[in-house]
């Protein structure tokens, strides 16, 4: 498709007005083109103002205070939880746990559910396309408990080997399947609903890493029938330092607490303690109140656009980006075609190193990420040490994609003879 053939699902220029950071010169006379959204997205004024308003007008600790400020802060904090419940269609707000982000959400499951319910010889089945945050916690647990971590292979087209998945479920004592919904490198959108059905048929639970899916498409935990969903605020127009762990209620209730401290207890004596109800059992200490409120506003912002429209637009700009990148000779883009891909294009340019590519793009005002993107095992399989990655969000334009393609031609002039 070309950029003129379809009307856009929303007014991108209007969206851009809400993101103050985009309206700066990256270098003198060079406007900023921010294409590092898979690492972290920018924030609209509405989110920034909500955080500022909280600190200006009603900051106090939540849950304990009887005074008005504490009541206001508690209402806003718990209100944000209910917005998150609605956003992912969780049955109950008690199943929405505030964490520091996707990484902490996965670690929470590993070190509470995993420690209690996994035994020596049990298998945690992950994939070869995971972010380190969905590999390393399980490796730590493997050292501690004698469990095994196995990986579903990635096929040449960048999708998961579903035949191997079924075989592994049949031949291994799999207790948990833990899989990325949308790869942060390949962009592959994995069939997690189908994978959940298969996992459950074999008596395993499934954890979905939604860090790269929840910000970009409608995600419904009841439709997917996942047992856990982990995602981060900062990739979806919200602040850093906060994320969500969703879990099925029976499972969360059976899990021991993650950290001990205030807010997570029902009663404490010097001989022992009992735990507070969900979700507070997993939220020890003073939470990230401003960040939760900011995330709630980010979710309002995305919902106002409509997640189906967000997804539609990103499919269009990704398809266009793949088309333009394909025209640059020497560029190899990794992962499946645009119809099966999130808004990510990880690529190499002949023998130019990704860091050099990113450096030259930066001089053209274009921010991309270069490296292994916290997915070293996947890069080993792709037989590259590093890729450059352009990733898109609601405020990126087709013109910016053109500028990326033009700048890559300049990179070739510099590095490739």
């Amino acid at each position, binding site marked *: 498709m070309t950029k003129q053939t379809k009307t856009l699902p929303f007014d991108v220029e209007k969206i851009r007005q809400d993101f103050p950071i985009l309206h700066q010169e990256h270098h003198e006379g060079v406007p900023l083109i921010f294409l590092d959204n898979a690492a972290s997205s920018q924030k609209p004024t509405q989110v920034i103002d909500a955080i500022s308003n909280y600190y200006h007008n009603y900051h106090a600790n939540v*849950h*304990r205070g009887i005074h008005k400020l504490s009541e206001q802060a*508690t209402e806003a904090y718990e209100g944000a939880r209910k917005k998150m419940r609605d956003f992912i269609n969780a049955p109950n707000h*008690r199943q929405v746990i505030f964490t520091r982000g996707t990484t902490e959400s996965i670690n929470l499951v590993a070190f509470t559910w995993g420690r209690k319910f996994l035994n020596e010889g049990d298998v945690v089945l992950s994939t070869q396309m995971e972010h380190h945050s969905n590999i390393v916690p399980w490796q730590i647990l493997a050292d501690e408990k004698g469990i095994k971590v196995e990986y579903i292979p990635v096929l040449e087209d960048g999708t998961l080997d579903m035949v191997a998945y079924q075989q592994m479920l049949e031949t291994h004592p799999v207790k948990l399947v833990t899989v990325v919904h949308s790869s942060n490198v390949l962009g592959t959108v994995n069939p997690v609903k189908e994978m959940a059905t298969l996992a459950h048929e074999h008596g395993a639970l499934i954890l979905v890493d939604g860090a790269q899916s929840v910000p970009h498409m409608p995600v419904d935990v009841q439709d997917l029938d996942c047992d856990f969903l982990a995602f981060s605020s900062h990739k979806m127009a919200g602040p850093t330092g906060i994320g969500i762990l969703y879990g099925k*209620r029976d499972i969360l209730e059976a899990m021991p607490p993650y950290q001990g401290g205030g807010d997570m207890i029902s*009663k404490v004596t010097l001989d022992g303690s*009992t735990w507070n109800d969900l979700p507070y059992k997993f939220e020890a200490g003073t939470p990230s109140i401003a960040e939760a409120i900011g995330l709630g506003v980010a979710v309002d912002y995305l919902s106002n656009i409509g997640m189906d429209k967000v997804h539609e637009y990103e499919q269009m700009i990704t398809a266009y980006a793949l088309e333009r990148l394909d025209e640059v000779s020497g560029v190899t883009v990794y992962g499946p075609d645009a119809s099966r891909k999130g808004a990510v294009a990880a690529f190499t340019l002949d023998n130019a190193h990704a860091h050099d590519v990113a450096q030259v793009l930066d001089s053209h005002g274009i921010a991309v990420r270069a490296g292994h993107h916290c997915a070293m095992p996947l890069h080993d399989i792709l037989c590259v040490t590093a890729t450059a990655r352009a990733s898109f969000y609601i405020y990126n334009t087709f013109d910016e994609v053109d500028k990326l393609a033009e700048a890559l031609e300049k990179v070739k002039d510099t590095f490739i003879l």
Partner: protein
Amino acid sequence: MEDMYRQMILDHARNQRNWGLIESADFDHEEHNPLCGDRLHLTLKVDDGIITEVGWDGDGCAISQASASMFGEQLIGMSLDDAMKLDKQVVLDNIGLDLTINRVKCATLSLKTLIVGTLGARKWEDIEDAE
């Protein structure tokens, strides 16, 4: 109107009705409000399914004490089955004040103790979450 409620709350908070635990009770359960440390221990005598005697003790603010005192009076003569079907509005109506989010838990601790002790924590969470 609010003054009348306030007087009633203070009266019940200072002179708690049915104070003191029943020995060899048919129902015996203690719950806590983790937000502020309130504690409520509720005991009941049940004959032929009817609550005939209530005894309780606990620590807490005037709202939680008054709420428990009024709730205890209500329970006497009620069937346990009916008591287990009560919603939180019953105890909130006893207090009659417009309570803020953190204080609602003080007023509902007595009902929570009955429900958690009979039907379990999940049932109480459902009652607490009802909008």
